[in-house]
Structures are given as C-alpha cells and as structure tokens.
C-alpha cells in the first residue's frame, strides 16, 4: 500500500484562530463566473431533453430507459411541503438541464483541459496538478455537470479502486452501475431524487474492492457555473467487504440574482466490515443580505450498511445555499453495523436550512450517533429534522442524539424536530438538546480581553462546532473553519 501518500499533520487546536482571522472577509469569495463555451440542452424539461442528455453522453439504452422511467414517475409527484422552508414554486421549464463545457470528452491529461477551467479550479483552491500529490487528495472535478478530469487514477487503479465520473462508469463498468445505481435511493424515492434520476448529467463513481483501504482521501469539487443551469449530480460509492474509503465533497457556485436549483443524489453501499466516511463542505451561494438569489439545495443522501459490522459516517458543514433540504441517512441493515451523522449547519441573513438525518435500525446490535450543531444568525431559519427508527428485529440497538442550537441575535430561528420510532423494547435511544445564544455580555468579555467581535464570534462558534469539525479530514477542517467565520461575518454587534 502506498502509505507515503497520506499526509500526517497534527491538529493544533490552539492555532485555529490565526487562520480564521486571516480569512475573515465579508463577501462571497467564490462569486466569479468562468467564461467557457458550453454545450447546452434547450431550456425546459420533457422526454426529448432527457433523450438529448442521454445521447450526448452516449449512454446505453438501459440507462435512457431508467431515466425515462424516473421522469414519468416524477410527473406524478408533488413538491414535498413538510419541511420548515418557504420558497416560491420552481418553474422546471425555465431551467437548462444540461450544460457541458465545450471540450474534448475524457481528457487523458491536463493539457487537454481548457485552461480557463483549470484556472477556475485554481481560484477555488483546487488544483488538478501533481502538487495535489502532496496532500494526498485525488480530485474528481465536476463543473456544470461534467467531470473534467480525474487525477491519481493510475495509482488507484493499481489497487483495483475505480474512481471516475459517473458517465465514464456507465460506459466502462455497466455491471456495477446496473447493480447499485438506485439501489439505495430508488428512482421513486422522492420528488427531487426522481428528478435527479431523470436528468443527472454527471457525478462521481467510486468502487473499493474487497479488503482494500483507499490510501488517500477521494474528493469531488462541485461548482455551478453557467446561468440557469440546475446541477443534478449523482454519486455512487460502493465499498466491498473489509474495505475503507474517505470521500470529500466540496461545493461553491458563482453569485447570481436568480435562484439556481441543485438536486443531487448520493448513494453509499458498505458491505461486511467495510467503512465509508463521507464528508461535505457545502458552500453554494447563499443569496445576498436581502435574501435575493442563492442556490436551492435539495439533496438526497443515503447509505446502506449492507453487511454485518459495516460503518457509514456522514459529516457535513453546511454554510451555503438559500435553502438546504438534506437528510443524509443510514440504513443499518447488517448486524453490528454503525451509522453516524455529524453536522454543522450555519444560516445567516435569509437562509433557510431544514437538515438532519434518518437512522434506520434494521439489523441487530446496530449503533447510531447523531451530533447536530445548528448556528443561526440574521433573519434565518435553521431546523434539525431527524428520525431514529428501530424496527422489530433490531434488538439491542442503540442511538445517541445530540442536537445543539446556537443563536446569534434575536431575529433568527432554531427548531428541532426529532422523531423516534421504536418497535423493539431492547433498544436504547437517547436524545439531548440545548439552545444557547451568543450574548452581548460574552462578546464584551472577549472585547475587553483585546479580541474583536468577529474574532470572538469565530472563537465561540468554533468551540461550539468543534465536535463535528474534528470529524473532518485535516485538509477540509481548515477550510471549513474559515467558512464558518465568513458566513457569520457581520452577524453580531
């Protein structure tokens, strides 16, 4: 195994701050638009558009049929209304469902990639180039729906690991895709996942063979670029028995006045003794201070612990999007399997977040742990919505949930909706919740010690969110901390 690729850095909690203070700036830093010629589908949604997408991607017939089936089902569905969010109806005919940078398909090396595109990624702090070796991160970059280049492929291939774009996987690993795609989130699952199944344009596929420990963090960086494009990526990770993988997803989008729709689906499959760790730093454009623009982020993420003793762990830091609707969940099917959900959701100005998790205990001796930290500021609304379900056969199951809310100011809202369904009386389900507020007196105390208000807020929220941040891989933790500080800029004092 190529262990030299894994960079070992010690985490000095006390140095947290110097990075924050250096990077506190008020505006959305990622709000630039890259001018790249795009190959687009006509606006709107109908079967022809789906055929167009499928044809552009040279998909096999079964894939097209799968999409059409999803589309036809979607037509019979309604937008879910149970979440604690408000938004005007989305006009699905006003969206471009496919936008690909005009460039040669499947670049074999970086020279073939549009330099403008590479610069975009550099602005984002993502480099596809060899220097990435140093951080041990393999990047699969997705911009406007098409994966433009995957680094480290060769090295991963030696271990039998497949890490490629979804389109490529459909061409080259059809059996794996047919077996697993839609197996965790069926096309009929919900409104947005059905839409995604119909129109998804790309995403990442990752396959870890039996007994292999993936030697580096795998990473996808998403970015919505073209105007009026919805982004519908689809990610599938399959970890065979005894394997391990840690996957990072980061996202940004340029500033737009209009709302952009993002409806992704992520499916994870963990076999016996396998472990998948999935981390997200979500930083889509949140809209301006008056609540104009911003991304509507309707995401379905679900993993299945299929084999005994398997483990799936979701970690998310959600700072962006006008609306976040997202419940990364785990189906604990295998006996002794473990599901974890660690979340920090920050809302400021007029952002709305309704996020949480579902832990479905089906197997015996299954464990789940939920740690949710909601931070609300401005006029925002932040809801935790979680379900812990213990089925009849899931004896000796355990769940522990901790939901903490932190309020900045008194015009924002924090809500918790914890649902518990227990059908087996040997289960132990614990739920703890706290709500606190950053008070003027706390800020003044910090000020009196020479710490300005922004830094004080950053200190307090980093302390508040620490348990979750500690779950993030090192490379992401630093960026995520900066993001927390940035997204709360100007919200106190």
């Amino acid at each position, binding site marked *: 195994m190529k262990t030299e690729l894994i960079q070992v850095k010690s985490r*000095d*909690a*006390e140095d*947290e*701050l*110097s990075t924050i203070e250096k990077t506190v700036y008020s505006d959305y830093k990622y709000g630039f638009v890259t001018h790249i010629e795009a190959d687009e589908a006509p606006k709107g949604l109908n079967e022809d558009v789906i055929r167009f997408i499928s044809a552009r991607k040279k998909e096999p017939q079964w894939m097209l049929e799968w999409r059409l089936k999803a589309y036809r089902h979607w037509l019979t569905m309604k937008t879910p209304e149970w979440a604690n969010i408000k938004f005007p109806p989305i006009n699905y005919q006003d969206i471009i469902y496919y936008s690909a940078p005009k460039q040669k398909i499947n670049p074999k090396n970086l020279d073939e990639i549009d330099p403008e595109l590479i610069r975009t990624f550099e602005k984002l702090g993502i480099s596809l180039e060899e220097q990435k070796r140093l951080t041990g991160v393999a990047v699969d970059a997705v911009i406007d729906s098409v994966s433009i280049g995957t680094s480290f492929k060769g090295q991963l291939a030696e271990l039998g690991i497949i890490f490629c774009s979804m389109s490529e996987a459909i061409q080259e690993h059809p059996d794996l895709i047919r077996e697993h795609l839609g197996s965790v989130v069926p096309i009929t699952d919900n409104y947005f996942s059905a839409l995604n199944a119909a129109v998804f344009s790309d995403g990442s596929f990752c396959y870890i063979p039996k007994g292999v420990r993936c030697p580096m963090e795998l990473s996808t960086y998403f970015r919505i670029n073209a105007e009026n494009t919805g982004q519908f990526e689809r990610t599938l990770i399959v970890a065979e028995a005894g394997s391990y993988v840690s996957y990072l997803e980061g996202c940004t989008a340029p500033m737009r006045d209009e709302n952009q729709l993002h409806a992704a689906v992520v499916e994870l499959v963990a076999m016996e003794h396998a472990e998948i760790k999935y981390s997200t730093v979500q930083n889509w454009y949140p809209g301006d201070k008056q609540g104009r623009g911003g991304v509507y982020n309707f995401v379905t993420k679900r993993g299945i612990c299929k084999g005994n003793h398997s483990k799936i762990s979701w970690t998310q830091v959600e700072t962006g999007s006008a609306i976040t609707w997202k419940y990364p969940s785990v189906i604990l099917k295998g006996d002794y399997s473990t599901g974890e959900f660690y979340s920090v959701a920050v809302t400021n100005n007029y952002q709305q977040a309704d996020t949480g998790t579902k832990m479905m205990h089906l197997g015996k001796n299954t464990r789940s742990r939920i740690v949710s930290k909601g931070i609300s500021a401005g006029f925002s609304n932040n809801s935790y919505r979680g379900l812990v379900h213990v089925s009849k056969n899931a004896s000796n199951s355990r769940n522990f949930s901790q939901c903490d809310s932190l309020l900045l100011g008194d015009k924002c809202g924090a809500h918790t909706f914890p649902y518990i369904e227990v059908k087996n009386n040997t289960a132990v389900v614990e739920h703890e919740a706290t709500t*606190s507020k950053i*008070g*003027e*007196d*706390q800020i*003044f*105390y*910090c*000020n*009196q*010690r*020479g*710490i*300005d*208000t922004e*830094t004080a807020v950053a*200190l*307090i929220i980093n*302390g*508040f969110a*620490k348990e979750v941040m500690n779950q993030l891989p090192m490379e992401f933790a630093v960026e995520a901390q900066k993001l927390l500080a940035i997204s709360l800029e100007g919200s106190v004092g």
Partner: protein
Amino acid sequence: MLTIQNLHAGIEGKKILNGINLDIKKGEVHAIMGPNGSGKSTLASVLAGRSDYEVLDGTVEFLGKDLLEMSPEQRAAEGLFLAFQYPVEIPGLNTVNFIKTAVNEIRKYRGEAPLDAVSFLKKMKEKMALVNIEQTLLSRSLNEGFSGGEKKRNEVFQMAMLEPRLAILDETDSGLDIDAIRIVSNGVNKLRNKDNAILVVTHYQRLLDYIVPDFVHVLYNGRIVKSGPKELALELEERGYDFIKNENKAEVA
C-alpha cells in the same frame, strides 16, 4: 496615566455617574469603596467601553489618549484590563485557547509577532504559579461551571497573562476564601511595578491589608464624595457608610 474629568454616564435613560473626577498616576493603587448601587461597576464598565452605557459628559484620558474614542478591544490593547465582578461563562470555548487568542490579538495590535506555543506555555506556567490556578481549570470551557472563587482566580490569571498598564479589579475579593484572598493579592502585588497602576473596587478593608492602596475613594450616588489615605478604609469599616451619607445630605442641604 488615567485622568477622569467630570464624567457623567447612564444606562437606558437612567443616570448613574454624576460627575466623576479621578486622577491615577503610574505606580499607584487606588481603591474605590461605596454602598451597593452607588455606581462602582458602572464606572468600571464605562472605562472598559461597554456599549450599552452612554457617556453623557466629561473626558477620560488614558496614557495620553482619548479613552472614550476607543473601541473596547483597543482599550484592552492599549493596556486597560477589567477583572469582572461577574465573569461571563462561554460554553465550548476552551480557556487556554481564549487566553492565547487574547494575548496574541493584543500583541498584533502592538505590532508584535504572536507568541509561539513554547513561549506561551512557559509564560502560562509562570503565571499559573503566581495565582495558584489549576491546569485542569484552564483546560475547561471558559468559566463554565467554575465556582465563584475559581472565576475570580481566573480573572487575575488573565490579568497576569495580559500584563496591563491599568488593571481595574471589580470586587475580585468577593467569593474568594480567606486563603485565596491572600494568594491572589500576593499575585497582584507581584504584578505591580512603577509603570502600571491598579484600581480596586471592594467592600472590604481586608483586601486592602494585602493590596495596600495609596488612595481610597468613596463613591456615593455616582460621585466621589470623599478621598483619603488608606486609613479611610478602616474608618469606613468601623463606621459604615451612614456618616458619609449624612455628611452628604448636609452638603446638599
């Protein structure tokens, strides 16, 4: 070092300070005593720059600069320290991390490089010994669940770490047990030098046995109505505030 002239201040429309005059020079220790509600903490808060207090009149000069023009964090960086009567709890914020940030923010203001981990730790160990504070306390969240005395000790520890030019100790002795008063006072005394000054607010003469003041002032109804040498504290202890109140009534009448 600190010159307060005709300071009037209030909060939420209520006037509390009614023309304070006070002059503190380098190397001096001043004590302020006075009945509950007379405005002692208000004076401390106004000097520290708490924004909910409104300054209505007067001037305050600190080390040649206009104190009232500065933000609270600037005042701190310029060397003003307030040991709070009621230190605030901040759950989730590690005490050491907080103090390290404070030390380095102040250094930054002064154009100095941040202390590296080794020097910081060395300094911390030294100051911990000075006020006899436990390491375990510092590894907890800031003041969260600290006992009354532990909070006060933590205030003086922070004072030791930040090495202010002017330290205002607002009833730092209340809540401390007899031994702790001695230890903490000794700590404060060790921090004294010819370039800094201390303003102690207290109700008890006992503290002044340890931190011996050059001047004692009596604050009543938002004004300094009597000033004198350290013996004034003894007199107050014996006679209570009534004679001051009566003297004052007589004056008004």
